[in-house]
């Protein structure tokens, strides 16, 4: 067994840490939460030049050919810096889905642009139920000649305002899992987006489809064959989201620990009080356990082993542990951390959103229960 990142991953981590320290200080994070677009072309360009968008994409499609663990390492740094922007929606949700389900032609068409950062994708899955269950997919894609005609509403679609293509999850049959994936040009007539105002300031949208016409050739994967793809993508996204949270723990420790040594009450640094020490010890327990849960699930994906159980265990554990970790950080920092100007709040808000995305702990515990044969 080996619980460490390898040399290459340490290099990825180090380079990302440096770049984001310069380009993504917390003032930037705050400004982007207010900004309509939510990121700048400059930072996106910088990320592209460092090869971030191409990291996971195979070499034959203009990518770097890295593995899932490499990507986790990078995403953890984005979590550390609370980086805003469409990387997750475009590269993780979009890129992985195309790589998983796309035909050779589609991959050749889409992935090279994704790798350079010129093309952006997002995944339009959840609807008004706010559920990841197949029954909750009601947006219809009816076949009319050589086209699919899409009607319905998607909710919580990340970064739809900048995506060129929305991979749209559509109902194409009567059985709950009769679901297909369609590549929909974001500028298609009949497609309208409206921003949702989110706690974390990340950009999510309601996307309505009013008889949006999509050529048959834009079917990603097979007709009614979308559900197994989504099940896999959900788990990969859940682990990637967990990696983002993992990165957050590193930053929060840096916010909390110095304070325990500097802040004096009753004539002693508060870190000398056992109540504070035990909170900090519990933070370490959460941090280390969640880190290894992310590593294990990512490693299994990278190694090509079955990962269903470990991925769901990861998302359930990390979501809960990270929330509790942040809460302990708040408790140690006292009123200071409750101030809007303190950075802990940025992570607090993201922690909740991350917990809810791609299946909350209850959702993943149920998947674990199924894996246990219950």
């Amino acid at each position, binding site marked *: *067994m080996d619980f460490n990142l390898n040399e290459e991953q340490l290099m990825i981590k180090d380079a990302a840490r440096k770049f984001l320290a310069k380009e993504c200080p917390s003032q930037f994070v705050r400004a982007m939460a207010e900004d309509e677009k939510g990121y700048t072309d400059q930072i996106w360009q910088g990320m592209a030049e460092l090869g971030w968008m191409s990291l996971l994409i195979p070499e034959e499609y203009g990518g770097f050919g890295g593995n899932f663990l490499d990507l986790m390492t990078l995403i953890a740094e984005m979590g550390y810096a609370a980086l805003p922007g469409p990387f997750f929606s475009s590269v993780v949700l979009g890129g992985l889905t195309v790589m998983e389900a796309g035909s050779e032609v589609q991959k050749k068409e889409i992935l090279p642009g994704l790798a350079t950062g010129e093309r952006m994708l997002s995944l339009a899955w959840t609807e008004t139920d706010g559920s990841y269950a197949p029954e909750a997919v009601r947006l219809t894609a009816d076949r009319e000649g050589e086209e699919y005609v899409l009607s319905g509403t998607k909710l919580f679609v990340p970064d739809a305002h900048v995506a060129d293509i929305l991979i749209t999850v559509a109902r194409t049959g009567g059985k709950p899992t009769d679901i297909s994936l369609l590549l929909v040009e974001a500028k298609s007539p009949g497609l309208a987006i409206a921003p949702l105002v989110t706690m974390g300031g990340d950009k999510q949208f309601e996307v309505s489809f009013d008889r949006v016409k999509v050529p048959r050739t834009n079917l990603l994967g097979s007709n009614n064959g979308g559900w197994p793809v989504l099940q896999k993508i959900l788990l990969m996204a859940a682990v990637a989201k967990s990696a983002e949270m993992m990165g957050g723990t590193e930053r929060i420790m840096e916010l909390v620990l110095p304070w325990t040594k500097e802040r004096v009450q009753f004539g002693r640094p508060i870190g000398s009080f056992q109540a504070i*020490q035990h909170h900090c010890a519990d933070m370490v327990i959460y941090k280390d356990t969640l880190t290894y849960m992310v590593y294990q699930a990512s490693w299994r994906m990278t190694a090509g082993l079955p990962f269903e159980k470990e991925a769901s265990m990861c998302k359930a554990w990390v979501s809960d542990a990270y929330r509790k970790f942040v809460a302990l950080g708040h408790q140690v920092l006292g009123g200071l951390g409750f101030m809007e100007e303190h950075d802990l709040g940025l992570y607090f808000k993201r922690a909740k959103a991350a917990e809810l995305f791609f299946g909350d702990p209850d959702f993943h515990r*149920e998947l674990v229960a199924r894996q246990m044969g219950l």
Partner: protein
Amino acid sequence: MEFEFKPEETKILGEVRAFIKAEATPDMLEESLSIGYCYGGKLGREFIKKFAANGWLVPSWPAQYGGLGASAVLTFAIRDEMAYHGVPSIFVAAHMAGPTIMHVGSDEMKKEWLLPIARGEVEFALGYTEPQAGSDLSNVTLRAVDKGDHFLLNGQKTFNTHSHVADYHWLACRTDPDVKKHRGMSMMIVDLKSPGITIRPMITLAGWQTNEVYYDDVVVPKKNLVGEMNKGFYYLMAALDFERMFPAGGYRRIFEQVVDHVKKTVVNGQPLSKNPLVRQKLAQIAIELEAGKMLYYSLAHILDSGQIPNYQASMQKAFATETAQRLTQTCMEVLGLHGQLKSGSKWVPLAGRVEHQHRWSVVESIYAGTNEIQRNIMALRGLGLPAA
């Protein structure tokens, strides 16, 4: 990164499993359970001596001392396997005293003790706790006076769990009362059959025995001093970092039995396993066991990397024992009214294992350093927070 065992580790684990299945008799397992999985019972000794002949009792020790020179990962995995199957799995000599002897003992002491320990021929009992030295271990007062050719010992130990089944006491005693407390302690090996030693049973909520041990003018040979005089406290603290592990195997076994039980048990017209709350609770425990497994083997990996764990041994103890308590609580909740029935009762589920574990689990967060002490260590040593 790698989260699976190496092929050679898997192979040995398979052999260990097969050996246990073939050699662990119901009587031996019953005896093991009756003394809290401590090593020292008659049947357990017979079993472990055969087991140890394969080098499995101390796999990470070098071959010259009876080990296999194997990884800490394998050592940890074998311990977990032993705990899972309920064979004796708590060893003071092999897992606590032995490594300290190896690190600080004289050549003569190594020669005298390490091979017999590795073969399972002798067992020690921890002699740390005293009435006024619990979490504050530096407060040990059992006095050892240097009488020239021997030490003369007087005083009292308490909560010494192994001492009625072990051969020797792994004893922390006061050798200098005039210096700062932690600078005047020494470690000694004392024959528990020595004249002047009286062992009195203390019965726990779990029905298992721990002991008070009284020393009344007990003579201990000079050669039984471990390492240097007055360094005992430091040896004892350092020993907490080496080969200190809390396998969850025993609890995992019970959990598996409960998972199996809920699939077969119909309540309100449906299998208990179909109750969404039951599913959530059991899945949560499975997840915590998995997280605990990560901490367990990451500790081994630190040792295999040639590093000394810092706060991680304390973290693993705290997490494993609290998981054990939550696991037990969940199992009791799932069993409902039946959970309170004791072994032998007509309607008892799972032979009363869960009811017994419920009583035993109380001590998990207390023994071997309370979990509060573990968190102090994590904060002070791991995070560098200021001491009080």
